[in-house]
């Protein structure tokens, strides 16, 4: 791809070099200056836990305990960095790979696996975490995020001057999603209504097998220019930079200045999902190159160089990761199939004749087997 294309690494905001060295940035330094070693350690912990969980889920899928698993491997910095920039009153619309963000919103990662075990389509109550359900239909939720943000404005929760009140929305989606008409319409609505929404694109360079060059001939961040939305490209493997630009964007949105588009340039280190086979479409050398740019290792190098990653802390996180892995295994294996009649629940909020009739029929039908059993 020519320079300036969607895989270009020019103009990425960076606050940590790949070697872990903290560097300055005229605009965004201010949004990272509050980060204490403790907070950086918290990010490192979150990234490490999410990756451990991700691995565990992958192996549970291999063992047949899950139907599918979607890894966030490689995208932890973009997710945890941005997730740590959120206030509790902000609302998030994830795609399906945002386990890192889910974790920062207090969603129990283990519960997420209910979806991938086929028990239910949504596995948490969005209002409890200000974190919407995963959306699998690419791009659809960008519009929901925009509408929710428009609602925040109507509710008077933007530009109040009270930081404990001002709220914004973040919509996460991928490079591939930016080709969808719905995402374009979301950008249009957001800009026209000045909605307090941050579009956070994780450009992980692939939409399943397709390179981001298949979606755009310019950087994905340019999509903002088409509708007058300010945008920024950030090194998505740099957790500090990802955090800083998101803080900036959220302040922009919460203060009534309208939407922002962030492109976090990163890499999907694993397969698209456990059903995918990346050897068919990308060279091992590329994977290796990006393995060397591991986002967790980068923060680790930074903290170590500063002497801020003591062994006790490492050990503590390691133990937590292990415990999470164990809890994941035992919980998932303990899940049993719920009552079949539950399949008919919640189709509507009010009774609907077809659903009621079919539920009643199925109940009788199921019982008829039980009765047959009983009379044998």
């Amino acid at each position, binding site marked *: 791809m020519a320079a300036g294309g969607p895989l270009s690494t020019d103009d990425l905001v960076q606050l940590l070099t790949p070697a872990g060295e903290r560097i300055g940035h005229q605009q965004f330094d201010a949004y990272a200056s509050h980060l204490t070693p403790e907070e950086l350690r918290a990010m490192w912990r979150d990234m490490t836990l999410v990756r451990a969980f991700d691995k565990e889920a992958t192996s549970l899928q291999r063992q047949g305990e899950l139907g599918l698993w979607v890894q966030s491997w490689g995208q932890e910095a973009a997710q945890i960095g941005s997730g740590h920039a959120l206030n509790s009153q902000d609302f998030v619309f994830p795609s399906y790979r945002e386990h890192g963000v889910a974790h920062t919103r207090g969603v129990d990662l283990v519960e997420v696996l209910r979806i991938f075990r086929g028990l239910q389509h949504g596995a948490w109550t969005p209002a409890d975490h200000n974190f919407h359900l995963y959306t699998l239909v690419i791009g659809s939720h960008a519009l929901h995020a925009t509408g929710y943000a428009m609602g925040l404005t109507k509710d008077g929760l933007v530009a109040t001057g009270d930081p404990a009140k001002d709220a914004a929305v973040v919509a996460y989606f991928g490079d591939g999603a930016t080709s969808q008409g*719905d995402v374009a319409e979301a950008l249009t609505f957001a800009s026209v209504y000045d909605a307090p929404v941050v579009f956070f694109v994780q450009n992980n360079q692939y939409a399943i097998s397709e390179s981001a060059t298949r979606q755009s001939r310019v950087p994905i961040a340019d999509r903002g220019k088409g509708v007058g939305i300010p945008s920024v490209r950030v090194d998505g493997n740099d957790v500090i930079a990802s955090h800083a630009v998101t803080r900036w964007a959220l302040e922009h949105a919460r203060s009534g200045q309208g939407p922002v588009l962030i492109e976090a340039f990163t890499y999907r280190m694993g397969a698209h999902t456990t059903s995918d086979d990346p050897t068919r479409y990308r060279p091992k050398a590329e994977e290796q190159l990006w393995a060397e740019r591991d986002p967790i290792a980068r923060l680790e190098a930074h903290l170590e160089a500063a002497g801020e990653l003591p062994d006790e802390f490492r050990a503590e996180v390691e133990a937590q990761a292990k415990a999470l892995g164990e809890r994941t295994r035992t919980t998932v294996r303990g899940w049993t199939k719920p009552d079949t009649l539950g399949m008919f629940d919640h189709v509507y909020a009010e009774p609907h004749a077809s659903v009621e009739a079919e539920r009643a029929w199925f109940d009788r039908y199921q019982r008829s087997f039980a009765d047959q059993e009983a009379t044998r």
Partner: protein
Amino acid sequence: MTTLDERPATARTQHAAASGSGARAERPAPTTMTMAGAINAGLRAAMERDPKTLLMGEDIGALGGVFRVTDGLHKDFGDDRVMDTPLAESGIVGTAIGMAMRGYRPVIEIQFDGFIFPAYDQITTQLAKMHYRSGGAIQLPVVIRVPFAGGIGAVEHHSESPEALFAHTAGLRIVSPATPQDAFDMIQQAIASPDPVMFFEPKARYWDKGEVDTTRVKAQLDTAAGASTGTAEMSRARVAREGSDVTVVSYGPTVRLALQAAQVAAGDGTDIEVIDLRSISPLDSDTVVKSARKTGRVVVVHEAPTSFGSGAELSSRVHEQAFFHLHAPVLRVGGFSTPYPGAVFEHDYLPSLDRVLDAVDKVMAH
């Protein structure tokens, strides 16, 4: 023009009883309204009832919508509650979903039937499924108003009847009023309902007039159980005319036609019972099956193409549940398996009095 489809006596009394309102004594005289006027009044009442109710659509503000159904509302409720949107139907439905998640009750106007399809994905995979996929945690009380069906001599894409394309998807309620009274009541019940409702407005009937009692649904919706009662009520079919020989089932634009057919047939000694379904999802097949068991003969009429239309579902259910009471198979009278043709052909394309009577003759032949 006075309509033939006003049989308020039975239907209204029945409703009043159902809603348990005791306000009959103070009821003011009913007002005469067009259907468009009744929907306008219903929207206004809903917006006054609940400040979270807002309208979204193309040209619904200053213009009042291309059919003037939202006339005056922008002036009285302002930009914040009557929102002219960008020209993007998926965007309208998608952002309405987000607003509903934030506690609003968006009422969308789609300008014409043929322009609902860019929003099809948002309606089918998002709006319809959110309550289910969230295990009941998220309600989406979104109403999508669609002026639909033909008969007005319009150009392409302005005369379609896509209701069956939505009825197959669980999670949506699909209703269509046939009279100003029902238009007034049902739009308010649809807005009050916690479920997404597609509200199909028979545009050729917009200027038909009828008496509207504005008090009944108000009393109903002001109660704590109003949303439930109202949802249940708009989901029930209405016997628009009692009869004993043949049941003619219809909804929306063609109810008037069914009543005309009944009038003509009465002259020939055939007593037609006319059922106005009002709701397509749920389909009140119980009411139809009851009638079918009585008359033994059923004809279904709608404007949508017959093939794979909602008449197919109704026909199947009547056969399944009343087979041994039927003297003849259920017949369907609908549009043809072609795109909606040029306006000069529309009266050939649409179900006509002759075609309905032809079907009635056929079922009467057994």
